[in-house]
């Protein structure tokens, strides 16, 4: 699904990613861990065409197509969904209006019929009910005045409605209490099948307990220095990043 080769990315003329390689196959769940500033969020932002990220070299193939020539809109409509660490507040845009527009843009890009208001409302109401999401966020403006937890629930709602193929989760667990983490994990697990993949950025393993990764990668100074399975996350939890050793192991 995703193949990243020798990726170099700068932000504000400072190189953050320095030759990163990563392959994610359909149906796989990957966790990306690393100290602050190692480049985890930069990778997620690059994959979703954030304007800050300047790719100086390397290539990214997504569904066997060159991802780097695609706009953020095209990437989203082709199934990439970035769950933001701190989603921006957009005062004045109603959350439901936004979500309906996004869903219908995606459907349009796939030559599917647009959903009318009634069908859309039914879909959203069923979704919030099924996953225990507080429906008060629906009537409000997009993330405006939302608490950290509400923002993450709103990201989850978008994710469930838009049904992406590649989920980029940038610390979706931060700011959530344990019950909210379970709701989010439950929602994400419900989406997963052999065609959907996840790249999950996290500092802690509580999310990884609920969404079991197939692979765990350690990012350091813009490169993946170690790759393992879930046990690597458990090892990190015990001993921290300092005791990983210098040996670079990639799969």
């Amino acid at each position: 699904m995703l193949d990243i080769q020798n990726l170099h990315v700068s932000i504000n003329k400072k190189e953050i990613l320095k030759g990163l390689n990563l392959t994610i196959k359909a149906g796989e769940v990957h966790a990306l861990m690393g100290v602050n500033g190692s480049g985890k969020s930069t990778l997620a932002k690059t994959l979703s065409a954030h304007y800050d990220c300047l790719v100086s070299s390397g290539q990214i193939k997504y569904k066997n197509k060159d991802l780097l020539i695609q706009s953020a809109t095209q990437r989203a409509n082709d199934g990439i969904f970035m769950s933001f660490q701190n989603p921006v507040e957009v005062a004045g845009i109603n959350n439901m209006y936004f979500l309906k527009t996004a869903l219908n843009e995606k459907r349009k890009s796939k030559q599917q019929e647009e959903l009318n208001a009634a069908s859309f409302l039914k879909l959203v109401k069923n979704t919030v009910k099924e996953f225990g999401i507080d429906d008060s966020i629906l009537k409000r403006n997009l993330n405006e005045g939302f608490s950290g937890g509400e923002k993450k629930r709103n990201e989850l709602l978008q994710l469930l409605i838009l049904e992406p193929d590649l989920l980029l989760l940038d610390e979706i667990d931060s700011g959530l209490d344990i019950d909210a983490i379970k709701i989010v994990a439950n929602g994400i697990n419900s989406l997963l099948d052999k065609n959907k993949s996840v790249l999950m950025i996290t500092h802690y393993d509580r999310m990884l307990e609920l969404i079991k990764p197939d692979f765990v990668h350690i990012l350091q100074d813009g490169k993946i220095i170690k790759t393992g399975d879930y046990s690597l996350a458990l090892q990190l939890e015990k001993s921290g990043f300092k005791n990983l050793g210098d040996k670079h192991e990639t799969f």
Partner: protein
Amino acid sequence: MKLFELDFKNHIKDTIAYESLQKLKLPNKKTEEFKKFNLNDIFTTQYKLNDSTSITLDKYKYLISDKFYTIFLLNSQIKESHTFVNENIQYSQNKKKCTTSNNALYHLGETFLEYENNINISKNLDKPLLLINLCAANNSFIPSSLNFSLEKNCTADILELFISENHQECFLNVNRAFNLSKSAILNYTKQEKFLENDSVFFNFNSDLEQKSTLNIVSIDSNAKKSLNSWDFILNNENISLSINAITNINKRKSSANIANIIHNGKNITSIVNVRHILKDYSSAVFDVKSTINKKAINANILQSSQTTLLSDDAQINAQPRLLIHTDELEAKHSATCGAINEEELYYLTSRGISKNKALNMIIESLETQTINKIQNTILKDFVLKIKGKNNV
């Protein structure tokens, strides 16, 4: 007739207004406030006076609803009303009284009017009043005048919707006066649906008694030239005045909000908050002068101009001015100018919305922030519906 040449004496209906106009003189190129808002082309255009054209009222009947009292006006003359079922709203047309205003444009309109229209509200209205102003004229100068009066302790929500079906170049000079008795509260909204050949000047003045509250929301768009002239002398105590306006224009259109607010009484709050969204070669003027005289202690004043420039060629000329002659007050003034928030734009595109659509959504959201100042939710929803916004 060309207004600039003042060769319109045969049409004068109000000689006192005409004398005031002569004394005050129409703004010329040298007038500071109009440096970025040239009126010369209007005053030198050849207009007919009130050459009205036919209009089908039935076309707009869909706007009538049980949620409002509704009055239709065609070129400022009442045509059809659904209000007379309510005895608390009286509409009348009387011989004009002398009006004092320092605004020459106010007297310009009055000069050509023999009668003045009055809407008097005597008790609290159980639902909002909707005035649908239909403008249908041909290459005309259209003066109009309407006074709103609220009796003591009375509260009302009023929306004036202006819809144009004008042909060729038309110039509307619209005078509105608010007369609020003690402790009256008027929430007034003005929404425009003008055409690109229309030039529209709104001239507002007021007589506000003590403890009265006037909340205005003004939603401007599309007219070639649009001016809101807010001329308020606040003589009584404990008055609250707020003006929230939005201008969203493109091409070579221009807009101005010019306010002259004088605080003479104690404990007066005045707020002027204008948001501009300027595309292409459009330009806007924000010229707000608040004078707080010596006896006007404990005043609370806010002047704010917020501008979003959507092109390198759009222009804003913002002058928030405070003339303070007293010590005890709180006053803030600001003028900000910027582009569209890139992070907001990116967030919308990252969910699959095209850049153009996302941009329009953000612009709409800026408008909605001003529309949200409308306190009555029925009116707010109606205004959003007219704008075609946020519909799921």
